[in-house]
């Protein structure tokens, strides 16, 4: 069998196994929670498992209602998406600008060092309620939370990326006549961007977390809000449905980021260099 056919076959096998596993999980879930199918082992009666874990059929019904029958999830999905993208863009621009500035001004960097360390060490998710007070229950507080998470990741990566520019490359560009602005455009920024792109998955993930957690802690729209409402009435099926939708959403974001990353990192010898993650929650 020729190598290309072999590779395609292997990929097909892989997908089959993955889909099979997913189906098995849902079947197991269904069997264990549908009242009457399996005698109660852990719980007092066989209706309680459904209460704690939800039933897959109900969950899929809810998802169907959201997307097709009532079609009322779109405004919430859109809200969460807008919050994620805004948090990501603002966090990246501010983190990048500050990272670039401090990398090129050693004195400013030395002065700012303990402050940055302190701010980074603080568990920033705690800020969500404060942001709600400052910015209200609209998208601003969710974006603010996402920004605090994204900022530090991008900052540390740009800082390292600029400081670790190959000195030969820098000297070579200078000898070729590059002005300070051209050095910034043709040397420092591409060097920093490669570090940023290698942490893109994490930054987008963090923006997403900021959006959803912010919604969860107080909001009037968004998928996190839907989950929050459902939890208030112990509607576990809606909660699970919300979680599944979020997960699918996150996977789509991740795939999109992967596309951008592959295109931007064409010039690198190895895909996915290891980067120490210094930003945290």
């Amino acid at each position, binding site marked *: 069998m020729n190598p290309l056919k072999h590779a395609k076959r292997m990929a097909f096998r892989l997908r089959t196994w993955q889909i099979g596993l997913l189906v098995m999980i849902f079947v197991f879930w269904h069997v264990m929670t549908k009242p009457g199918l399996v005698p109660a082992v852990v719980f007092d009666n066989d209706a309680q498992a459904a209460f704690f874990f939800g039933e897959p059929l109900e969950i899929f019904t809810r998802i169907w209602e959201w997307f097709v029958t009532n079609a009322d999830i779109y405004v919430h999905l859109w809200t969460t998406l807008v919050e994620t993208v805004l948090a990501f863009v603002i966090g990246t621009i501010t983190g990048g600008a500050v990272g670039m500035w401090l990398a090129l001004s050693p004195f400013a960097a030395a002065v700012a060092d303990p402050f940055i360390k302190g701010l980074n060490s603080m568990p920033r998710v705690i800020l969500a309620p404060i942001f709600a007070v400052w910015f209200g229950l609209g998208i601003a507080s969710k974006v603010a939370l996402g920004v605090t998470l994204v900022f530090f990741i991008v900052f540390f990566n740009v800082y390292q990326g600029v400081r670790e520019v*190959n000195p*030969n*490359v820098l*000297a*070579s*560009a*200078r*000898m*070729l*006549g*590059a*002005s300070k602005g*051209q050095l910034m455009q*043709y*040397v420092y920024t*591409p*060097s920093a961007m*490669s570090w940023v792109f290698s942490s893109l998955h994490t930054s987008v993930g963090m923006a997403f977390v900021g959006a959803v957690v912010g919604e969860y802690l107080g909001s009037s729209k968004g998928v996190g809000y839907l989950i929050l409402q459902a939890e208030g009435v112990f509607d576990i099926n809606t909660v699970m449905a919300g979680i599944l939708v979020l997960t699918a959403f996150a996977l789509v974001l991740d795939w999109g980021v992967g596309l951008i990353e592959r295109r931007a990192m*064409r*010039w*690198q*010898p190895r895909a996915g260099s290891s980067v120490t993650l210094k930003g945290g929650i």
Partner: protein
Amino acid sequence: MTRPAIELTDVSCTFLSEDGGVHSHYTAVRGVNLTVGTGEFVSVVGPTGCGKSTLLNMSAGLLEPSQGAVRIFGEPLVGLNRRAGYMFQADSLMPWMSAIDNVSAGLVFNGMNKSEARDRAAEWLRRVGLSGFENSYPHHLSGGMRKRVAMAQTLIMDPDIILMDEPFSALDIQTRQLMENELLALWAAKRKAVLFITHDLDEAIAMSDRVVVMSAGPESHPIGQFLIDLPRPRDVAEVRVTPRFIELHTAIWSVLREEVLKGYQRNRGN
């Protein structure tokens, strides 16, 4: 009398370092007098760590001498040497740019419009034998190919002085000889002043008009210079077996060997 391209007069360079609170200084070169005439190909050889690269960096304006004067075509050097091109020992191509973008970079930096710069770069890539590789990134290219791109990148600027820091030392011997011949062929078209640093005495004699021998560091200085009167054009592989080459090699090596041993002893003693 035409002014020399590079003139180092009584130049010294001292580096300060701080190692865990202890300040120390290291004088790489002291009292160096060196000239490179316009159109002259000068090689500097010497034991490892004798400050050869320091001389080059001072000629480029990347480093300022602690003492003494650096003059370029008679004018004192202030800031970067705008009339010189520099070929580095290690990779200095911008890895995020394709070959043609790297080669056209210098022209773009100096204000040429992109499409004209690209046309010229494509021509230079053809001259160094890399047509077809315009859009390849450096990591797709072999070491020798990267060196050729770097050569094109430097020479496209048509600098009056070419500074080279052991440019071929990282290549295997066959590629190295090919590159040496390439460089001589490109240089022969418009003879520019070249200051060429190398460990390889064979390379130095085969390529240059004059070879300067540096003493062992620290406080290194030139201890001898030899005029190479081998006729041009030369093939670096074939010229090695001519009698005059062997004479020159013996003469220079007798001076150089002392310094190499001295340098080795000093390092062992530390």
